[in-house]
């Protein structure tokens, strides 16, 4: 199968607009055929000689002292290789603490790969059973008898800090993991002088990522060469390499992490999970390969959860619509440990950083408190903090507009940072290079045809049908520098590297440190290299996810693969072109500057006339170097690294619109249509960007209406399965229209910013505003997601 190229031309590019450019074209991803033919290689496909399968015995209690563990019966069960407790595993693996120094005061307790003294959430592993098959391991796991002494459970974040509440880790003194207060301008004066001050409390349910492929790892410790090879579905292979080396007492060079095909990650697979480290430690202990593939039930209680925030918000507004101040009080529960190594305080930090960031309003006070509780750990999931900051900001702005009788569009027109005001800084101190709120808003209104929608809404309302329109503008953080983690002491690389090499037939081998999670990073890398170097994309082969064979780098997270990895690929491709042309110049007795590589041929730069094919250059360089002039040494390999330096992050922006219908009798909400305009700078591949935005929106709409990890007061997850945890399916999702404004970043030549989280950032806010618009005739406002039928009916006073 050879996929056809989209022939829509490049989107107004300058120096990128090389002949035969692939930039701005919807090039199909190179791994498409392999994956659609079922020839992908996921971790669960990896089978090694002597490989054991691990099943974990997991605590059924949210908080319990481990009194004793009886393993004899399990050890005697068919197929069992070993039964290992936390205490035994501690002999080969040191514990960790998930803190970062730039989050001042953040504290957490030491966490072991397998719990030793006590289990702190339902689902924490307390013993491991390794057997010939996973089924045998599960059979034997049922025979491990653990004697627990139940401890008081902390579940409610509202009371986690009360003096009467037990402290989960007594050595930490209290249940407060982290606290941040940020004040800008003079919020007190601004509230005092505002014509109106509006308050609301927003609730964000806990939810999780539900990757199609669960977390999976095969660890193979070869005692013969003292080397650990780990096949893992991860977003950050070098980070995993560093951490496994550190805690298993190996040099980094003796740990190789391979990440082949990955079935979705969304942030779920960028963390260091205790059970995955335990698998590597078991391999070292048992000196044989061990495989762990999480099943769906353990995924729900161990994959990181996210959100779970309660935000009290206030906005001050003048009668003319000027917003004078924002204030938030954010409280979030993160489970019993701050996750390693990125920590579980980042989401609250981003809520503080992004709230009100769309607007010129200079007065801002934000308090964030992060508390421990006996539930599964939370950490960074797609659009970390964004949907919270966006829903609070945009919910408050709509409430303010309603109070003063202003159109929601008008109040935004009046208050967003104007497109000509950049560079500038938000009240939270975020530095914006250049955003396009005004252009995005006008484009969205065009796409929505707001007047027609309002006419339809009015007509439906006469028939007793309640439809509503909501909009929500957002900012999105992408292309992070070391400001995210590196400055806090984490050995998480913020730079990425790409090596390109020409082979003897003139094809290009690319090794990149960014990783392919199913999002198309390899496609974008191939496009960029093909364009920079000058070959048809079919002649570019991209390898990712192998710490032995790619440059060192961060991987895929925080919407960075295209913006950072792409730029490294661009620069490496250009260097290789120069290297090849200098050899071609020597062969042709021409000036290299007067030559170019286009479509796989060395040509005259001026006329485009063919001078020689690439494979001829390669043939001479590799097989007949004796014929080259003295002093000419071909270097047909080049590596470049890239990290943004002028700005800590490349902020992007966008705006979403939602049209909904609320059945006031049943409380059911139907999503009629959704729109998003986003600005990711240079669009390298329109199809991939659009699908990132659509997928992101779906992961924002799910929590708005359906997804919610429900815990009872004993810390038991009540709906940890695919029947009860409601992931939206195609039928529930509206048609989603995506539009773009393009404001390239001046930091890189490509000008690409990230696009992976834009959809998730604003989807729930747009829907919440639309639902409240639909319910406006009832005088009812919903501020908690998910907006379930029960919640809608309660708000309406129907039940």
């Amino acid at each position, binding site marked *: 199968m050879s996929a056809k190229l989209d022939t829509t031309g490049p989107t107004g590019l300058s120096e990128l607009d090389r002949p035969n450019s692939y930039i701005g074209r919807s090039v199909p991803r190179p791994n498409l055929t392999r994956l659609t033919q079922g020839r992908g290689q996921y971790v669960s496909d990896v089978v090694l000689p002597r490989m054991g399968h691990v099943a974990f015995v997991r605590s059924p209690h949210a908080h319990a002292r481990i009194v004793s563990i009886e393993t004899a019966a399990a050890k005697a069960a068919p197929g069992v290789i070993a039964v290992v407790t936390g205490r035994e595993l501690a002999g080969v693996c040191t514990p960790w603490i998930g803190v970062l120094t730039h989050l001042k005061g953040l504290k957490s307790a030491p966490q072991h790969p397998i719990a030793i003294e006590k289990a702190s959430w339902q689902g924490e592993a307390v013993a491991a059973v390794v057997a010939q098959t*996973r*089924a045998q391991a*599960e*059979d034997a796991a*049922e025979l491990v008898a653990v004697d627990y002494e139940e401890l008081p459970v902390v579940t409610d974040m509202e009371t986690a800090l009360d003096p009467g509440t037990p402290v989960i880790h007594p050595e930490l003194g209290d249940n407060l993991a982290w606290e941040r207060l940020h004040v800008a301008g003079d919020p007190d004066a601004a509230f005092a002088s505002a014509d109106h001050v509006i308050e609301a409390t927003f609730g964000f349910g806990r939810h999780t990522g539900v990757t199609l492929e669960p977390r999976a790892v095969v660890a193979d410790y070869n005692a013969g060469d003292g080397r650990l090879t780990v096949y893992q579905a991860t977003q950050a292979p070098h980070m995993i390499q560093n951490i496994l080396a550190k805690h298993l007492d190996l040099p980094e060079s003796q740990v190789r992490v391979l990440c082949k095909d990955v079935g979705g990650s969304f942030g779920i697979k960028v963390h260091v999970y205790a059970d995955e480290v335990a698998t590597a430690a078991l391999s070292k202990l048992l000196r044989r390969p061990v495989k762990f593939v999480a*099943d*769906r*039930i353990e995924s729900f209680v161990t994959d990181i959860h996210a959100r779970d925030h309660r935000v009290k918000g206030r906005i001050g507004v003048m009668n003319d619509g000027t917003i004078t101040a924002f204030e938030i009080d954010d409280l979030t529960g993160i489970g019993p440990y701050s996750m390693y190594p990125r920590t579980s305080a980042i989401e609250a930090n981003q809520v503080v950083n992004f709230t009100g960031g769309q607007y010129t309003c200079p007065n801002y006070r934000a308090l964030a408190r992060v508390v421990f509780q006996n539930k599964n750990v939370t950490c960074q999931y797609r659009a970390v903090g964004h949907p919270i900051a966006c829903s609070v900001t945009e919910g408050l702005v709509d409430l303010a507009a309603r109070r003063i009788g202003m159109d929601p569009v008008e109040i935004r027109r009046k208050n967003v940072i104007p497109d000509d005001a950049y560079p500038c800084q938000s009240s939270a101190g975020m530095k914006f290079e250049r955003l396009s709120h005004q252009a995005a808003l006008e484009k969205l209104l065009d796409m929505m045809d707001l007047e027609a929608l309002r006419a339809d809404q009015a007509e439906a*309302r006469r*028939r*007793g*049908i*309640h439809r509503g329109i909501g909009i929500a503008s957002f900012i999105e953080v992408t292309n992070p520098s070391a400001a995210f983690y590196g400055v806090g002491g984490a050995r998480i690389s913020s730079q990425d590297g790409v090596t390109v090499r020409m082979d003897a037939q003139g094809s290009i081998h690319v090794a990149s440190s960014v990783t392919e999670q199913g999002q198309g990073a390899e496609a974008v890398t191939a496009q960029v290299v093909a364009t920079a170097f000058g070959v048809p994309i079919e002649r570019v082969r991209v390898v990712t996810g192998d710490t032995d064979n790619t440059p060192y780098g961060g991987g895929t997270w925080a919407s960075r693969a295209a913006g950072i990895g792409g730029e490294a690929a661009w620069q490496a491709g250009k260097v290789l072109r120069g290297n090849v042309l200098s050899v071609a110049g020597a062969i042709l007795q021409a000036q290299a500057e007067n030559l170019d590589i286009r479509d796989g041929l060395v040509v005259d730069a001026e006329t485009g006339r063919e001078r020689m094919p690439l494979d001829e250059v390669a043939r001479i360089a590799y097989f007949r170097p004796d014929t080259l002039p003295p002093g000419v040494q071909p270097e047909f390999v080049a590596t470049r690294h890239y990290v943004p330096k002028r700005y800590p992050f490349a902020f992007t922006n966008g705006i979403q619109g939602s049209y909904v219908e609320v*059945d*006031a*009798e*049943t409380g*059911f909400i139907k999503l009629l249509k959704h729109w998003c305009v986003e600005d990711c700078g240079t669009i390298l591949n329109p199809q991939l960007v659009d699908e990132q935005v659509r997928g992101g929106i779906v992961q924002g709409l799910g929590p708005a209406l*359906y997804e919610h990890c*429900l815990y009872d007061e004993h810390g038991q997850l*009540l*709906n940890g*399965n695919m*029947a*009860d945890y*409601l992931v*939206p*399916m195609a*039928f*529930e999702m509206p048609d989603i229209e995506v539009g773009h404004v393009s404001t390239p970043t001046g930091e890189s030549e490509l000008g690409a910013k990230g696009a992976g989280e834009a959809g998730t950032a604003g989807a729930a806010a747009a829907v919440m505003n639309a639902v409240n618009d639909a319910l406006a*005739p*009832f*005088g009812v406002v919903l501020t908690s997601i998910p907006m*379930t*039928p*029960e919640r809608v*009916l309660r708000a309406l006073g*129907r*039940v």
Partner: protein
Amino acid sequence: MKAPAFDYLAPTSLAGALAALAEHGEAAKLIAGGQSLVPALNLRLLAPGILIDLNGIGELKGVSVQNGHLRLGAMTRHVELERSPVIRQHAPLLAEAIRHVAHPAVRTRGTIGGNLCHADPASELPACMVALGAWFTLAGPDGERRVPANAFFKGVYETDLGPDEILTAIEVPQAGTNRRHAFLELARRSGDYALVGISCTAEMDGDIMARLRPVFFAAGPHPMVADHAASVLNGRKPTAALVQAAAAALADDLSPEGDLQISAHTRIHLARVIFRRAVARLVPEAGLDGPQEVAA
């Protein structure tokens, strides 16, 4: 999520299956489409010693019309209910309801016998069978017996089926030409079990309602026949006020439980809403389908 080990037997006749069931007793579990059973095995909620597979038994298959009655073999797949012209003609209610049961992949494997024997209180087909006055044929060591649908369902996942019995067929009596039906459910997502649903049949004598039989699912431990509500409307000309009164009477007919999605109280509210909508659909000529309440 791996099932504990079990033995497996695939008899090719009903007699063979019954013999195996008699031999293994409580240790045995019948498997039909496996769509409810296999998840329960993988979750280790069940650990049968042996599975007796019904898929190879010809006697349990087939859809036919006999003496005017529709006969459905227990191994009839959901997808056949959806597609069979015979079913659409003789029991259009089933053809309509089945599209609300799960998703296409599940409907391809799932059987109506398995669905009815599983007896999930939120399941659509049991309520439909009660509304249609169906009869179930159960085969056991001592031969066959016939049980009316409303006597078959006893409670949550509980039926009249003995541990040594197999459901072989379902008979749906012929409907009068005057028969109307309505089916409605509220589910969070397409294919989910309903928060609450209604399956009802009725006849009209002129503009007088007769033999209204509203059967609710997810509104009690088994299909719930709303006799009180029906009695308000039967023998009368349906008006908005009467329908409202009938809906009010549902409190006496239903005994829902609360669950993760919805409280018991809200279930009753929703049952009333769909009851009113179902009656409006049954008698479109009565013009009951007025606008939703408009806010003050």
